């Protein structure tokens, strides 16, 4: 009997995980891609008709798809950019030595710990047109004359969704950045200070470049999860008014599950998968490169 080599034993140990991964992750993905090539509807029974790329041609002529894509891109861009900027600022503040810093670091995570559906409803109450505290504050400050129906108008409904996502997720980004900040050796700053670099110079020449891998990870996570936004929309607007806040994921869910249009729903899901894969590929390169680079530059 042959004994297993170290490598073979490794594969053996990995086998169960790999099997689970294949069955529950890879198989459904490929099945979805395959289904997107068929005309397959709940209402017409279990027969599938192969139609090639017709679902995709239909998609690129579907104004509701483009509307959803536009809103999803707008949402992703605005939330991720703002969250990263705010995350950098908050992390810097939380890294300052002051009394109660530990408590603050915990408190700041609360929005992120609240389930999305709950924070969605909180925001819905806050921007309510009859008793919303948000309207109350703006009115007291003299910014608005009367209470606004935030969720009944296109632009403001989008704005509220974006704000609620930023409120919820900026703390998460700031915590990731804070962790990154703490790995930067203090000696580097001391050396830079001796060389005559001011605080601003130190921030842009030392802190930011050394934070790049952490930032890239944070941006990657945020891009992917923002692009798949769904829950907060269900809680706040359910896609309304009209189609103004219908995201790509929401349109996919409605097409696939509610309408039972499995073929076209799969095509929409495949499109989302394609975009998220591109985002992930772009970033894994950046992250891997920077982490290796970071290791090499360590003293």
């Amino acid at each position, binding site marked *: 009997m042959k004994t297993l080599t170290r490598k073979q034993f490794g594969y053996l140990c990995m086998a169960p995980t790999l099997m689970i991964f294949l069955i529950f992750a890879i198989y459904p993905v490929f099945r979805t891609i395959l289904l997107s090539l068929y005309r397959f509807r709940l209402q017409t029974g279990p027969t599938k008709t192969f139609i090639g790329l017709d679902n995709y041609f239909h998609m690129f002529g579907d104004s509701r798809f483009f509307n959803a894509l536009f809103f999803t891109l707008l949402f992703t861009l605005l939330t991720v950019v703002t969250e990263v900027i705010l995350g950098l600022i908050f992390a810097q503040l939380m890294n300052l030595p002051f009394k109660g810093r530990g408590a603050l670091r915990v408190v700041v995570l609360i929005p992120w710990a609240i389930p999305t559906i709950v924070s969605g409803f909180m925001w819905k109450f806050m921007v309510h047109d*009859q008793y919303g505290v948000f309207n109350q504050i703006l009115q007291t400050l003299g910014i608005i004359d009367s209470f606004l*129906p935030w969720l009944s108008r296109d632009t403001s409904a989008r704005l509220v969704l974006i704000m609620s996502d930023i409120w919820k997720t900026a703390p998460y980004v700031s915590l990731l950045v804070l962790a990154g900040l703490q790995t930067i050796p203090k000696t580097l700053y001391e050396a830079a200070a001796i060389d005559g670099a001011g605080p601003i110079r130190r921030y842009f020449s030392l802190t930011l470049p050394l934070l790049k891998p952490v930032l890239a990870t944070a941006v990657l996570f945020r891009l992917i999860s923002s692009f798949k936004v769904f829950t907060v929309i269900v809680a706040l607007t359910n*896609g309304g008014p009209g189609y103004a806040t219908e995201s790509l994921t929401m349109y996919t869910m409605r097409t696939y599950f509610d309408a039972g249009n499995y073929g076209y729903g799969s095509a929409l899901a495949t499109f989302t998968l394609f975009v998220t894969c591109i985002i992930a590929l772009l970033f894994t390169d950046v992250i891997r490169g920077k982490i290796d680079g970071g290791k090499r530059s360590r003293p």
Partner: protein
Amino acid sequence: MCAIVVTSEYARNYILKEEKMKKLALCLTVLLVATTLFAAGSKEAVPEAAVTLHWYSHASSLGNTEKAIIEKFNETNPNITVEVIELPEATNDKLQALLIALQSGDSSIDFFNADVTWTATFASAQLIEPLDTWFPASERAGFLAGTIAAATYNDKLWGIPFRTDAGVLYYRKDLLQKYGKEVPKTYTDLFATAQEINEKEGGGLYALVGSLANGEGLTCNAVEWFYSNGGQVIGKDGSILIDSSQNRQILEMMSEAYANKLMPEGVLSYGSGDARSSMFQGKQVFMRAWPKAYAMGQDPAKSQVMGKLGVAPLPRGPQGTMGKSTLGGWQLFMNKNSKHKDASIKFMRFYASEYAQKLHTLNDSYMPARTTLYTDKDILEKYPHYSDFPQVLETAVPRPQSPYYAEISSILSAEVQNAMKGSKSAAQALSDAQKAMEQVGK
């Protein structure tokens, strides 16, 4: 004692029925034997193979009524065990769970609770058993016409209704009395009445509110507007009829009312809870809601208008002959692949019987699908306002019947919002809805 009354009533139902089918004759014999044995005080089980049925149901109701009904059923059917499997809370999640299971050919589901809007979808996908022979016309006589219509698709019956619901108009009794106003019969009167009351009360009151957030609630409201003005959404032959002058007129009227702040400005994001809270805070003269809002409005912890709420049928549009409510509610469907269809139908019948529906009404304030229960002494004692409902329910209309209902509803709700918020004219929104609906399923 009560059990004997119920069982003998059961036997009577069976005797009244046409005895065409062998199966039914067999059921009848078995049941008669059971009844006789039971009435004679014998606890002996009928010699018949034991069956276990799986019922995919709502999460158990407040009063745990399902359990009580099953126990009662077992008194006469000791050889049938009914196991309840709870479906998810949200209607859409229920639908998905059931579709996935049934499409895979799962035979362990025998029958299940189904929303009124599911009939065409399940029937056209051939996932459920037609019930015409199991539940013939003679047995349907005691039901509200709308509930049977909603369970019917392509001239076949697919479900047995056990619970119904219909939109009604709530009004402030005190305000209408104070200014000597009648309950409005038309939407024109409704807005005029509310405006006058608002002026005399010194402002701060909205005329109308409903659940107009994007989604199913809005579809119900909009369908009521259309039908109350003589319009339609889908014709009997399946043709799309939403782009009509009647629908245009009433949608223009509603959009104008919204623009003139006769409805709360945020109403396009209001679910039924938001609508109720506006009414219960005393900010509304009228509200369109489901009947269950009435009981909530009598709870002093939630409502400032306790004892001031009146309930009436919905008003009609300028071209309509009468106000129409859309129908909600639940029915039982039988899985086409069930291995115990005979036993299943027995329980399904029992669950839709007067006894079971009455228990649900008293325990959980369900609205019964049987006409006779609206004159029932015990029910009226507990819910006096139920006496007004039969006329609303008799004229209630099912929502558009289409296998592609979910898509139809989603287009309808989004385009109505487009018109309400003014980003399209009512004419444009309806013509867009017409085009989009004609593409559905193609």
